[in-house]
């Protein structure tokens, strides 16, 4: 592997790698398997193994490569076949037993198996409707290049922004470019990145640090994971540029422990960058040294909060500090520190390469550029998407997400994780930007979007988040520690049908106290799920309290399972699987549930093939 001794060596290397890749692409077949965590969960490893086996048995020459997440998680495992320099034909939901037919028809007979094709990908993904309204900038390489290959990253134009920054720009110029672009923090709070860097540069200190926050703790969010797994070099390149701009010689990437593949790909990418001379001393021949290390989190949601994260890097318990000083002045080991989300860092090379004006040409007045989101919950096309800021929620849910599957009706979309809120159907035309979401009682957050339908109880959702926060509150300040526990008590009473209307006022009062009096951002935003559901779904709270019913049929104390005698065929499946032996009946005769014994586990409802088990 050649160490790059000067900036001038990068361009010829890129051209050389591009030529190499082109030559090998022209003359060969490339089979790409999506091997992000989503792909692996859906069974991509087994698919990969079967493909290898088939190729060997039939003696077919093909280059196998793995890529990160392309975004179409609902279609995983995804297998692309590219012959020569033709388009990549993407097969979706590939099961091992589908592989022989694909190999036989596509590779041996030259016939694409149209039944299983999701679309054709050239340099972009225009052919696939899922991508119509997307604008893949940060995700440009995800699912396109092998994240384990720095060569593929360089061939796709990687590290050109670094070369440009190091040779043609002063640190001040880099910062002004980032400021002019209007880039705001992608971790959720949306602080202007250029300003943050400027304060770090200007702050007094012996040393400076750059830190990437990859501690994606929000339940329901996996954008950062997909980015770290799928294009680790983009994050690293952004950090090197940032470090040069603020004068840092040491950097850290904090990755949560639950993401082993992200840690693996980032570690490999750092190693490769060192070998190429893109990290270390005199980077690209310029008198500038930097090394970046990975710090693994250990399972604490609060460590996504900047001051807690830095405590954790120092080897201390991840408790937030009061913000008398910003991290830009006194961050890691009390030295000036630029801490940004991994997605923010990955935007930096784009801005340097294409200019601030290009970046600012998409998005809204105050929220520039694109944002990645992940769609999950009751939505047809679950996945990892990137859209220009200002797109409406409706476009995301329906045009990209394909709406709610089955007979469900859209009820709400939850954004911003436990710090965010639930936005109801009549607000679907809301433009997605930092400020509109805040106004609607939610927040951008890191980008999780969970769609909920009429089978989701909003009181249960509020209770879920508060229960989550009860476990995750670090306990340092009492408003958050105690307030959340009390809110949980009240919410539990409501879901169990034991509350009265005065409890709602108390809940609201408590929520506002926690909001006002907590120490860190997580505590201050902890009541958001409660306040937003109270604001938009008060009727559901009242149904639980006044009518003692759960309209969505979720809260156990308020529902019962029953068997429709007309629909029941007496097959006996439910009574066999009932853990309580609460279901009885003669064979081929309608069965019945003994409500005294029933624990409402819902297994009968799941196993019934005749829709004979209902909830009321």
């Amino acid at each position: 592997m050649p160490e790059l001794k000067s900036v001038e060596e990068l361009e010829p290397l890129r051209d050389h790698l591009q030529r190499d890749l082109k030559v090998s692409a022209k003359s060969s077949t490339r089979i790409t398997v999506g091997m992000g965590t989503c792909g692996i969960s859906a069974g991509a490893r087994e698919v990969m193994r079967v493909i290898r086996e088939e190729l060997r048995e039939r003696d077919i020459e093909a280059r196998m490569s793995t890529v990160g997440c392309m975004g179409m998680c609902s279609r995983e495992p995804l297998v692309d076949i590219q012959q020569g320099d033709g388009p990549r034909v993407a097969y979706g939901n590939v099961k091992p037993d589908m592989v022989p037919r694909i190999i036989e028809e596509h590779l041996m007979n030259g016939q694409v198996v149209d039944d299983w094709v999701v679309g054709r990908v050239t340099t972009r993904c225009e052919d696939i409707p899922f991508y119509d309204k997307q604008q893949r900038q940060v995700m440009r390489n995800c699912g396109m290049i092998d994240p384990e290959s720095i060569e593929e990253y360089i061939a796709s134009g990687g590290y050109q922004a670094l070369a440009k920054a190091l040779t043609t720009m002063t640190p001040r110029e880099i910062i002004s470019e980032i400021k002019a672009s209007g880039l705001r923090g992608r971790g959720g709070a949306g602080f202007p990145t250029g300003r943050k860097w400027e304060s770090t540069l200007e702050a007094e200190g012996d040393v400076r640090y750059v830190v990437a926050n990859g501690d994606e703790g929000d339940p329901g969010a996996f954008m950062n994971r997909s980015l770290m797994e799928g294009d680790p070099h983009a994050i690293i390149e952004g950090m090197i540029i940032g470090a040069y701009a603020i004068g840092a010689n040491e950097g850290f990437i904090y990755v949560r422990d639950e993401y082993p593949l992200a840690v693996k790909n980032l570690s490999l990418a750092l190693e490769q960058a060192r070998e190429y001379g893109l990290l270390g001393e005199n980077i690209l021949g310029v008198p500038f040294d930097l090394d970046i290390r990975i710090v693994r989190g250990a399972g604490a949601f609060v460590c996504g909060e900047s001051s807690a994260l830095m405590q954790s890097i120092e080897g201390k318990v991840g408790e937030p500090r009061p913000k008398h000083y910003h991290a830009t002045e006194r961050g890691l080991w009390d030295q000036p520190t630029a801490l940004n989300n991994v997605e923010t860092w990955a935007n930096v090379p784009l801005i340097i390469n294409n200019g601030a004006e290009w970046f600012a040409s998409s998005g809204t007045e105050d929220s520039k550029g694109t944002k990645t989101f992940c769609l999950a919950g009751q939505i047809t096309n679950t996945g990892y998407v990137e859209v220009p800021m200002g797109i409406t929620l409706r476009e995301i849910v329906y045009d990209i997400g394909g709406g709610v599957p089955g007979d469900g009706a859209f009820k709400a979309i939850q954004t911003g994780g436990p710090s965010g809120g639930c936005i109801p159907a009549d607000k679907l035309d809301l433009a997605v930007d930092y400020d509109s979401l805040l106004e609607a009682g939610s927040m951008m957050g890191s980008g999780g979007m969970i769609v909920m339908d009429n089978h989701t109880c909003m009181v249960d959702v509020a209770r879920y988040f508060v229960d989550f926060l009860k476990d995750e509150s670090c306990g340092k300040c009492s408003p958050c520690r105690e307030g959340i526990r009390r809110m949980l008590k009240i919410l539990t009473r409501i879901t169990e049908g034991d509350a009265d209307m005065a409890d709602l006022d108390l809940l609201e009062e408590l929520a506002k106290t926690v909001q006002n009096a907590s120490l860190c951002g997580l505590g201050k935003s902890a009541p958001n799920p409660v306040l937003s559901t109270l604001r938009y779904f008060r009727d559901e709270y009242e149904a639980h309290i006044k009518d003692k019913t759960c309209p969505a049929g979720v809260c156990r104390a308020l529902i019962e399972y029953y068997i429709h005698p007309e629909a029941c065929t007496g097959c006996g499946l439910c009574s066999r699987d009932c853990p309580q032996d609460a279901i009885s009946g003669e064979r081929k005769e309608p069965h019945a549930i003994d409500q005294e014994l029933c624990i409402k586990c819902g297994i009968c409802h799941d196993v019934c093939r005749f829709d004979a088990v209902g909830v009321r």
Partner: protein
Amino acid sequence: MTVELKRINEIIDCYSAERMHALAILQDIQREYNFLPREALEQTAQRLGVPEGEIYRLATFFKSFSLHPKGKYVCKVCLGTACHVLGGPRILESLERELGIEAGETTPDGMFSLEAVRCLGACALGPVVVINEEPYAHTTPDRAVKLVRRLAASEDEAEAGPADEMPSIQSAADSSSASRSA
């Protein structure tokens, strides 16, 4: 389990004996022993020159550490928002019933530990269950129980010989996702 101080020192020696490496050292010890033995905590404190109480504090603050030995198979049921909405809690309950333990506990034979975790980041394929770092997508209570039964059965069969490899829906036990490098 015997804890050899020599091995603990080897783990610590992979890093410089500075406080900032405390988390990484504890993570490596946890991977080695499946929990944090008391002797290991004491040795880490001594080597790093940090009070034992501080190391204990780290070990109890972060959720991925355990002070008790975990089972051979660690079943993590995701209760992230998407998995919650899609029925994750019911999967956890059915596994609690199947294994006769509650979330956070280990079966008396040391075979299974059951954990409720908040988001594994595979939300698009929920509900998700992860067993020994191998993720399973679109799980149902029924499928989760069958998976655990299959593992238990394979253990019974393998009693005569060692059973290092875990049977899996996806088989092909590629260890790449279980990387410990950092």
